[in-house]
């Protein structure tokens, strides 16, 4: 044990041998009540002697500390062979992750970093980079708080993040959502399926389904009878990915399940399979509900509707919920369920018309038009039928239905169309109706927005400014535009950021014009930042100018770089 120099702390031989527990007990109760095991020096009171002795013991203990026994060290993290992020991109990720915590308030003219993180992650993943190890905890925290980030964040974070998540209960979500990251090895999946927690099993099933749909279904069938009802529903949902007629026997069997949710899920999946027996049964039922109404000359003039009068046991087994939600009539509800689940290919022949467009154009008898079109729209979305979606959407410049109108949801129908057509349709819509109802439609367009959509949105914002509105009335669309406009559009937008020239340019510009200039300034700033981020993600060799040494400590170190002409700036 190290010896103290005698001058450091005054002490006596008696004090140094006193037991620490005895000193603590005396100090706790007070020397008035308990005499400590110390001998005071002449002229010293017992409290002072206690402190002397305690000081010696303290320093002696601290000077003689020994290591403790190590607990079991975590096993090695799996290797990640993807290339590391370029240095500038690494720094950008750090900044985007830190920006999450930045205080809110009025946004002014600077870009909103938190909104750019999702697309940055997606772009980094397209390049196939791995996230730097020291940023994994921040990445896991960000994705814990925002589920919209999870898929891309966990893909970038890779196997080491899952290794970390097993050590920290706070990151359990990652095991559920990220287990599919990397290769789905069937043997590995079987082991997890037998031994794993629910979340890990669900992830393993989903991962296997993506690579080998039949193996995943067989894995599920192998333990189907032992699973709990709520687990059966969740697992069944995983079959939605890669659904094919090969799944039909299994799903048909699930239609007879004890649990209603399992039956409903199975029915929904089968109705999305136009060749399935269920969709044939639904077609039979739906066919009986609609008939062509012919004019005197024999041409089809309208659609006659005979909605079902009851929901029989067969319909119920095929997933029709017998009780409608509040406010809906029973017959209209049942009609909707049948038509929605019937293959759309049925109708041209049944109604005696050439195709979707003609069918949609036909008048419908007795006020059933809205119900019928809503059901067709549901079927078009479920069956990903672009022709029917196009027909039901109609021309973009027609007056739009009031938002929240029952049935037809143009955003969902749009999502069925190919991206280019989607952008064109929304561009026309914006040109005809402005931005006030365009938010959800813009949300389903592919990013970055293809022309002519970008131009249409910018023109509409420009007109809104000219009309005397305030930019915050359009903050939703503005935010979307910041994230979705093509970064190359920034130059074209620059002119919008300038204030209208006043008599005196130093005069503080009050009112809307100033706010618009600021809002456009932020838009341009964000687009430029996105362009910069895109460049930063290019592999080092492709960057236009090497801004920093590729290796070397902690980033762009000016001192380590040979100074360029002019030193401070080139």
């Amino acid at each position, binding site marked *: 044990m*190290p*010896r103290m*120099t005698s001058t450091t702390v005054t002490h006596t031989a008696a004090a140094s041998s006193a037991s620490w527990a005895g000193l*603590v007990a005396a*100090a706790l*109760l*007070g*020397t008035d*009540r308990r005499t400590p095991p110390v001998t005071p020096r002449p002229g010293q*009171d017992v*409290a*002072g002697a*206690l*402190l*002397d002795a*305690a*000081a010696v013991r*303290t*320093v002696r203990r*601290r000077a003689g*500390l020994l*290591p*403790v026994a*190590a*607990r079991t*060290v*975590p096993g*090695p*993290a799996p290797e990640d062979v993807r290339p590391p992020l370029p240095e500038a991109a690494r*720094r950008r990720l750090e900044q985007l992750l830190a920006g999450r*915590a930045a*205080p809110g308030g009025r946004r002014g003219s*600077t*870009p909103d970093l938190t909104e750019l993180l999702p697309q940055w992650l997606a772009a980094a993943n397209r390049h196939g980079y791995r996230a730097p190890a*020291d940023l994994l*905890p*921040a990445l896991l925290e960000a994705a814990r708080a925002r589920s919209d980030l999870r898929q891309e964040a966990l893909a970038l974070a890779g196997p*080491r993040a899952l290794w970390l998540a097993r*050590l920290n209960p706070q990151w359990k979500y990652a095991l559920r959502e990220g287990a599919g990251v990397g290769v789905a090895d069937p043997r590995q999946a079987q082991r997890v399926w037998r031994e794993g927690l629910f979340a890990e099993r669900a992830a393993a099933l989903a991962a296997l389904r993506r690579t080998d749909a039949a193996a995943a279904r067989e894995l599920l069938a192998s333990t189907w009878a032992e699973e709990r009802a709520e687990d059966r529903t969740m697992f069944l949902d995983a079959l939605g990915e890669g659904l094919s007629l090969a799944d039909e026997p299994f799903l048909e069997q699930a239609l007879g399940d004890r649990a209603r949710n399992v039956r409903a899920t199975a029915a929904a999946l089968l109705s999305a399979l136009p060749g399935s027996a269920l969709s044939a049964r639904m077609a039979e039922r739906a066919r009986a509900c609609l008939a062509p109404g012919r004019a005197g000359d024999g041409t089809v003039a309208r659609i006659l509707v005979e909605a079902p009068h009851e929901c029989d046991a067969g319909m119920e087994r095929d997933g029709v919920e017998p009780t409608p939600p509040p406010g809906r009539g029973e017959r209209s509800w049942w009609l909707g369920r049948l038509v929605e689940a019937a293959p759309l290919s049925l109708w041209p022949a049944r109604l005696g018309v050439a195709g979707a467009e003609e069918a949609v154009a036909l008048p419908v008898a007795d006020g059933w038009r809205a119900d019928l079109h809503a059901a067709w729209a549901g079927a078009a979305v479920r069956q990903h039928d672009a022709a029917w979606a196009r027909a039901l959407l109609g021309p973009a410049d027609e007056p739009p239905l009031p938002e929240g109108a029952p049935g037809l949801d143009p955003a969902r129908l749009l999502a069925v169309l190919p991206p280019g057509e989607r952008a064109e349709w929304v561009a026309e819509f914006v040109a005809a109706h402005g931005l006030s109802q365009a938010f959800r439609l813009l949300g389903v367009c592919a990013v970055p927005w293809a022309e002519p959509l970008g131009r249409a949105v910018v023109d509409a914002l420009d007109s809104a400014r000219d009309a005397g509105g305030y930019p915050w009335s359009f903050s939703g669309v503005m935010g979307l535009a910041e994230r979705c406009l093509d970064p190359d559009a920034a130059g074209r937008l620059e002119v919008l950021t300038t*204030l209208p020239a006043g008599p005196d340019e130093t*005069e*503080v510009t009050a009112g809307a014009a*100033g706010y618009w200039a*600021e809002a456009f300034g932020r838009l341009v*700033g964000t687009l430029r930042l996105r362009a910069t981020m895109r460049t930063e993600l290019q592999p080092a060799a492709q960057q236009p*100018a090497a*801004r920093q040494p590729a290796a070397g*400590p*902690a*980033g762009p*170190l000016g*001192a*380590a*770089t040979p*100074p360029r*002409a*002019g*030193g*401070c700036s*080139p």
Partner: protein
Amino acid sequence: MNAQGERLTVEQVLALAPDAASRAAGTRLALPGPWSGTGACSTGTGGRVLWGECKGSGGRPYRTVVALAHADGPAYQCSCPSRKFPCKHALGLLLLLWAEGGDAVPEGAGPPEWAASWLDRRRQRADEAASGRAVDATGGPADPAAARRRAERRAARMTSGATELEQRLTDLMRGGLAGVRDAGYGQWDETAARMVDAQAPGLAARVRDVASVAGAGGGDWAARLLEECALLHALNQGFLRVGELPEPLAATVRSRVGLTSDAAAVLAAGPLVRDHWLVLAQRDSDDGRLTTRRIWLYGRGTGRMALLLSYGAAGRAPELCLPVGMSVDADLAFPPAARPLRAVLGTRHAAPVACPEPPPGGDTAAALRAYGEAVRDDPWLEAWPVVLAEVTPVPGEGELGWQLADASGGSALPVDPRGSGDSLGLWRLASLSGGAPLRVFGECGHAGFTPLAAWAPAQLPTLVQTPLPTPVPL
């Protein structure tokens, strides 16, 4: 002197920011968008000046100037109303040098009039200050007798403060610690305030530490409280008999009580230790009134550890900023102490250069031995900076805290639960390790180890598993 004429690295610029919000705001302005009229040029004295106008929310753009020639770091001027210093515009302008391959700040013939006038005023002030210092140096203190009287008055006050504190401690021992446990912070606050009145800030700070131990609770609170009281008692006793102590220990006692000498005096007194100082870590702490920046250095020639302290008033970043991971050829002066660690930065002889290798380290037993030996010289030491050569982090589980386990031998150091930085710091360490041993720098103390930086294990298997030379701050 320092990296004059060079761009500051992004790290260096970000380290100038007073807080995280400014850092984020500054980086958002590091794009050409809001800037106009930017430029840079060299000054006659070899420094660099940057200027630019930044569009804000108002009609008139803010005018920002940064002078990089300053020996203690850059100087800033901005017409914005922000009380942060440097403001986001100054940070943005410095970072702008890195944007667009450097084209965003073109080389100019000279600063515009508004920038030049501020630079002139600044130069004038600097000249006046320099001539003022010259007078001081030749003439010495204006009135040596008055200065001595002031020092004697302060010593008397501190002595009576230490005596009073001793009285309170012995009263506490008589009455028992059990009584103070529920008494709250009130009486400690009052005692701390008395020590501030007695011009003994070191004693005041220790009293507040004792109060936090008393308030923290935990199973062994009484033992920990007794330890803190006993060490405070030893400090009082040391100060009351400082004349009887050998000189290095007397210096330690004086500085721990709060009698410190200013940086210029320390540098003037010498001796200067010139070395290639590797910047190991930098950490800021903020107690609401004051931001304290600690920078740990390792002398590659001497093998010495050093700690630089720099302070900033609330909302201002401390001025001193050294690039972590780089090596600086510089003079340090260590004020006299029984166990010298704190140092003052003197002349920097060259710009910082990349350091080819991390510092050498030892195992966990060696780390505790280093702390133990340091405590033998300075019993009030809480911790001592050490490098652990090869340790694997073991995450905490429930009641069990984190550990750093030796790569071989089955020994481990507990991680000090108080000092792990933000909660993610330890997880960053675990993530860097990936279950493999890595080199860690930190402070080893009686309450455990506080990791401050780590070197990631080499990614690709090589013949010799050499750590990468860049430390990652934790």
